[in-house]
């Protein structure tokens, strides 16, 4: 059977933070545009819109990705985790608490991306070195903090999470 070539508004079914979500989008729209403009999930931010800054980081089928570099229609059948799914009804995620206590944010635009990326790191490597944290987060740009407090917050959160585990 010949493959259908999709154009105009396409119906996409996906899973976001564990819930099935349906949306209509044109193929030219990015996953980031869908999250922010169609679904009201404005945690992921548009920074550079070309894959350099990490402000739009989400986890898609287990891999950290820049949602500005994913087409809306590629979300079909995928499982996506955004910053909105990080906290639980019981409270903030240890990373979020640690960012607050370590003053790891100023303007906050990069923060959702940093937390999504750092969470992905700690799930893969619960005890990273400072070098590993800096390397993993090299694709997340912050123009306020100078990174030091962010790195310390991630290491602090990692320690808390290991203690709780």
């Amino acid at each position, binding site marked *: 059977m010949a493959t259908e070539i999709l154009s105009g508004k*396409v119906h996409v079914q996906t899973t976001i933070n564990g819930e099935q979500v349906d949306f209509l989008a*044109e193929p030219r729209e990015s996953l980031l545009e869908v999250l922010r403009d169609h679904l009201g999930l404005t945690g992921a931010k548009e920074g550079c819109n070309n894959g350099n800054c990490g402000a739009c980081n989400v986890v898609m089928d287990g891999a950290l990705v*820049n949602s500005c570099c*994913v087409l809306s229609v590629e979300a079909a059948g995928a499982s996506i985790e955004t910053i909105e799914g990080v906290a639980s009804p019981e409270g903030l995620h240890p990373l979020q608490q640690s960012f607050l206590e370590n003053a790891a944010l100023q303007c906050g635009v990069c923060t959702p991306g940093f937390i999504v990326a750092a969470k992905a790191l700690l799930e893969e490597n619960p005890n990273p070195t400072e070098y590993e944290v800096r390397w993993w987060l090299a*694709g997340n740009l912050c123009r306020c903090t100078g990174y030091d407090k962010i790195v310390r917050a991630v290491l602090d959160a990692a320690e808390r999470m290991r203690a709780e585990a």
Partner: protein
Amino acid sequence: MRAIQYAAPSTVEDAVAILAEHGSDARMLAGGTDLIVQVREDARDTGVFVDAKKIPELMELSVNADGSTTLGAAVPCHQLYNDAHFTATYPAVTDAARIIGSTGIQGRASVGGNLCNSGPAGDTIPPLIVHSAVCNIAGPDGERTVAVEDFCTAPGRNVLADGELLVSLTLPKPPAGSGSHYLRFIPRNEMDIAVVGAGAWLQLDGDTITAARTGLGAVAPTPLFVQAAGDALVGMTADEDAFAVAADIARDAASPIDDMRGTIAHRKQLSYVLTQRALRGAKARAQGGSPTNGH
């Protein structure tokens, strides 16, 4: 971004049919980290995006009966460096996969996509060259293979004709006693495009080099296979004198340009230094160790 059409075929045949029908207006979409940005920024005018990731052959990563590895064109970088067998067998390729863009780029970007983007500085291409990779191409007239060093033809251009796609790469099983390394120079620690990149592969019998291949990126219109450097090493003792001979040949083979990332003189010198370091790293791995000069 301009309006586009999107297709997600599940077979190579369907992908070829779409590519053939739409000609140069269609392009395969793997990780999209080049293509989506290029179209959004009007650097490329692609109207039909053909998603590679629903086609099993393009997502394959498997070891064949003869010990060679099939690497599907759309397999993302992060899958490669999380694969213990692949990393141990083709370390120069994973050296490159770890340093392309960021973690978020590596979650999507593929080696096949890096090759098809055909940038002179594509980090995975010199490693594929030193590992003697072969490109498996499908098109309206059937299948063909091309040695990876012959794939790129000019900046952003390659041997793929309209209707053709890169299905996978075949990487031969490296012989016992061999090792490889890739590294690049950039003015910061990460998230940058190579000023020069160098890859090397060596096979040793004791201290004697029995086979060698080196490659360079960002010093010519296409990534270079510096065949003369590897050939010169055969029969030599794997020491600093030998590596200096090969590095001299690499410097002579480089024909770089001056641009925002580096000068001709700097890139010629880097071709020497990085070839030397890549050979040291390849030797260390051939002897069961690790490179000491990082990435």
